[in-house]
């Protein structure tokens, strides 16, 4: 027995050691990763972010250098904080607060200590930097907007947050990422790929040379330049027209689906979201919950489309063969079911055929057509579905699939929708007759409406709207170059187009004609409500206008929304005419319209619900003229825009 004590001890020790080795090296060891090895310093080399050009080659977004002071808390040695704070232009309290925050994030990993130093501060600091162990300067590239327009289109870049870092290991603390607009949509294209150098450290954190002679180092891959479909001049002009109003303009080139203009008002200068002031300005914009400048109305605002929707019903009526272009419907200032008026109408001659129905925007006409469509089928459920499918084929009722990251689905009801609402088969076309005139349950976003108009102007097909025109050395997504067919046959479009043409010639927009351009359009007015102190209150109607031009071989299709602008031709129609003329002719002959739009503000209208006072809606008196100083400012901007020639 005595012989075995040492023998057993040796065996046991050996087994325990192997078990411990197994625990350390196999059980708890993560596969070796250079990125997580703190014996290796990772130095990133950030590539140039790609530039953004407009469709005419005008540079919109470029870069400017920026310098961040980074800290690795664990490596910080006691330092002269007073001097350091003075150099960084911060106070000591902020120094301590930031340091603690960085330490909490990670004592080992670099955090941004002070971001976006100016070139001057950088120059001073750079010489003294070696005195402050644990701190270093990281050069980055910031955006430099060459323009003051298109904030909603161009978007911005900002520091990544923890959620992004956890999701995508490419990003490290302090990296910049596209947050909105094309910066976000084309982040991977624009950013390029950062390069990395692995440097072997010793335990005193000194660099002792490249790891493996730089075998694993990568050189940065430059970001690619992109050209977007926006016409900068048209965009600027659109934004100018929308000043002192709220709403959106979307203009599309029907033959390609390219978005020419995408205005959301109110807007802001993209340059305010660059550099050290970024967070303060962003908070300011973010906290403006009344005007909501960060809310992209052109993509996200969802309204009942109103009368422009009527043309769709006409098309569906023809396709379903429940109505011919010759059929006339009478209108007694509205549409009646028995003695009950389901929907009103304005004064016009009666009865009307299709073309005139569109031109005069007769509610009763479309109520009849709508009813015939739904009632063509035995069950309203099937009729509703057939109608819904036609409408959806125009890109309504669902995400369009454009290359910007925000949007709304809109709403196009179907049979199931009303079954759920009223009970199975316990409803009929008359229950939702408002859909005939774009009220009721239908809702759409401006870009969906613009796309619908583009499809009509193309007589039956559209290209998915998109913002990307060209990427250096790449082809753009095939989805944007393949036409999407609607369910309406080509032959049914001509009378509808004629109707829309007549809107301009003798209908609701006859005052907005532009010489030498055959514009087809449709006015619209959308009732809308807001909750004021918990009470649903009706506000002044939204002014809506859709149009395309020229009538044949259309070059531009657009939708204009002006919140609380009252009827369609009052604000939206004028703006639409101006945009079309600007785009096609390059100069404005209807300066009277331009003058009127610049002169008038809707701020008073917007102030009403906020005032807490009782107010009247839809009144002619609510229009407010801008003061002289503002008018002069706008005129100055206009002059700047007019100098640039637009290539039609």
């Amino acid at each position: 027995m005595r012989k075995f004590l040492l023998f057993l001890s040796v065996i046991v020790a050996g087994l325990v050691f192997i078990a411990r080795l197994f625990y350390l090296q196999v059980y708890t060891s993560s596969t070796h990763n250079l990125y997580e090895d703190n014996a290796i310093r990772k130095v990133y080399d950030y590539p140039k972010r790609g530039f953004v050009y407009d469709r005419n080659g005008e540079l919109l977004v470029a870069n400017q250098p920026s310098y961040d002071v980074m800290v690795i808390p664990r490596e910080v040695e006691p330092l002269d904080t007073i001097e350091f704070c003075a150099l960084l232009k911060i106070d000591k309290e902020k120094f301590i607060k930031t340091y603690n925050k960085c330490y909490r994030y990670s004592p080992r990993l670099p955090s941004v200590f002070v971001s976006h130093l100016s070139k001057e501060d950088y120059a001073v600091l750079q010489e003294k930097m070696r005195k402050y162990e644990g701190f270093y300067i990281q050069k980055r590239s910031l955006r430099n907007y060459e323009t003051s327009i298109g904030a909603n289109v161009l978007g911005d870049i900002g520091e990544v947050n923890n959620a992004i870092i956890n999701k995508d290991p490419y990003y490290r603390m302090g990296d910049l990422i596209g947050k909105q607009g094309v910066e976000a949509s084309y982040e991977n294209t624009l950013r390029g790929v950062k390069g990395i150098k692995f440097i072997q450290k010793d335990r005193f954190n000194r660099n002792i040379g490249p790891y493996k002679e730089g075998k694993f180092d990568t050189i940065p891959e430059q970001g690619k330049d992109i050209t977007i479909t926006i016409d900068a001049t048209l965009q600027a002009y659109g934004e100018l027209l929308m000043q002192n109003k709220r709403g959106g303009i979307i203009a599309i080139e029907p033959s390609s689906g390219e978005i020419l203009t995408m205005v959301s008002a109110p807007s802001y200068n993209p340059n305010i979201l660059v550099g050290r002031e970024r967070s303060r300005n962003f908070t300011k914009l973010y906290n403006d919950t009344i005007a909501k400048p960060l809310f992209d109305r052109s993509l996200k605002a969802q309204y009942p489309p109103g009368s422009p929707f009527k043309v769709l019903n006409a098309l569906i009526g023809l396709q379903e063969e429940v109505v011919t272009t010759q059929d006339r419907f009478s209108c007694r200032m509205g549409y009646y079911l028995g003695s009950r008026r389901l929907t009103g109408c304005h004064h016009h001659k009666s009865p009307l055929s299709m073309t005139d129905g569109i031109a005069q925007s007769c509610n009763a006409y479309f109520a009849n057509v709508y009813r015939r469509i739904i009632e063509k089928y035995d069950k309203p459920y099937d009729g509703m579905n057939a109608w819904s499918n036609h409408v959806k084929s125009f890109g309504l009722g669902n995400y369009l699939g454009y290359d910007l990251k925000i949007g709304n689905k809109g709403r196009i009801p179907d049979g199931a929708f009303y079954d759920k609402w009223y009970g199975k088969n316990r409803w009929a076309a008359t229950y939702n007759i408002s859909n005939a005139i774009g009220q009721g349950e239908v809702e759409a976003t401006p870009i969906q409406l613009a796309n619908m108009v583009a499809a009509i102007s193309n007589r039956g097909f559209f290209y998915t709207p998109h913002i990307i025109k060209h990427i250096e050395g790449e082809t753009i997504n095939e989805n944007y170059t393949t036409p999407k067919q609607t369910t309406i046959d080509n032959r049914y479009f001509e009378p509808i187009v004629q109707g829309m043409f007549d809107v301009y010639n003798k209908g609701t927009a006859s005052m907005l004609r532009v010489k030498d351009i055959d514009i087809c359009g449709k006015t619209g007015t959308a009732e809308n409500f807001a909750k004021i102190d918990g009470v649903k209150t009706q506000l002044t109607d939204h002014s809506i206008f859709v149009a395309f031009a020229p009538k044949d071989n259309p070059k531009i299709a657009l939708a204009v929304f002006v919140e609380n602008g009252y009827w369609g031709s009052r604000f939206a129609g004028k703006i639409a005419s101006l945009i079309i003329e600007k785009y096609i002719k390059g100069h404005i002959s209807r300066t009277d319209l331009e003058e009127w739009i610049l002169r008038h503000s809707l701020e008073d209208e917007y102030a009403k619900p906020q005032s807490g006072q009782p107010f009247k809606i839809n009144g002619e008196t609510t229009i407010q003229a801008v003061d002289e100083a503002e008018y002069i400012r706008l005129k100055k901007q206009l002059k700047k825009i007019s100098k640039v020639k637009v290539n039609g």
Partner: protein
Amino acid sequence: MVRETNKYFKFDWITIILFFLLVGFGWLNILSASNTGETIDYFNFSQPYSKQLIFILLTLGLIVIILSIEAKFYERFSSIIYIVSMLSLVGLFLFGKNVNGATSWYAIGGMTLQPSEFAKAATALAVAKYVSDLNSDIKRLKDQIQTFIIIAIPAILVLLQNDTGSTVVYGAFFFVLYREGLPKIYLNLAVLATLLSVFSLKFGATITSILTVILIVAYHFLSKKKPPILQSLFMLFVCVGLSVGIKFFYQSILQPHQQERISLWLRLEKDPVKLEQMKKTFAYNLNESEKAISSGGFTGRGFLEGTRTTGKFVPEQHTDYIFSTVGEEWGFLGSSMVVIVFVLLIIRVLHLAELQKSQFSRVYGYGVASIIFMHFLINIGMVMGLIPTIGIPLPMFSYGGSGLWAFTILLFIFIKLDSNRINEW
């Protein structure tokens, strides 16, 4: 047998091969641990790997000398060797050179020698000589005391020179004496004391005392052959006294750095902030060493590929912490192999010791196995955080001429004794 007739095969080649495996692999790891990332220059004698290569070459000469000397010489001159060795330790107080807080080196020219390394072999010879003497019997208290003195002299001398690690190694002789008939009570006491100490430090004296009382009382009443009440009371008194005393010993007698090491080993500190602090201070070595071993994974990062080794993250990596290099660069496979080779070597020596016909050779062989085992246990245990930090080298592996030669002498004297086995009747 071939071995008995052939001049060269009379040596135990298995032991010799295992020895050279360890020395050779050890040198590769010293090369890796001391390599500064520049091109390797074997003739740059400021580099540890070049120096160690010289030490290894000199070892070959040493082996030839040891094996050429008449086997009987070692037994006959063991007392003189012991006395000379003890004098060399005493001489350190006068001429010693202080390195890292321990006055354990003689500086001769550009070389340093560490007599405490050689003292282990000398003590092993002296113990073997005394225990194998026909007049001595380890079961007698007088001989136990005498043997204890032989072991205690070098142990205390090195302790006074601040070389705690080497003192602990002399505990190895317990295995030797136990094999030769040391009464079982010592083993029981040693095990009991160790368990009680660890328990008291980890869970507190109160809990440990209560538990011991319950156990002893239960044993007293439940045991079939009723132990005398006095014996149980005595046991109770000793145990409780020990568990209270150890706390006092820990807090008042141990030096702060020793307290820290024990606290670290028993994971006494729970506060994450303090733990983080510890990792930067006294737990730094262990933390880095564990990380290096852990980062090796199953197959390791490859020879000269370890980033923590190249970056010199583990201090003393080519000496006491050499095993962390093995861990990082050779992974679980390599490290386990090293553990296995050590186990095989120790067991081989043990096996040979049992085969010896002379008691001197057997006791000496046991001494060799015990000393190597003690180093192996403490060093690798420490590097992996299983044992409190005690700075002693890994035999045959760690950088250092004195250590390598001392182990060579220790082992090859036994190989020589073993080769002479057939002549012993």
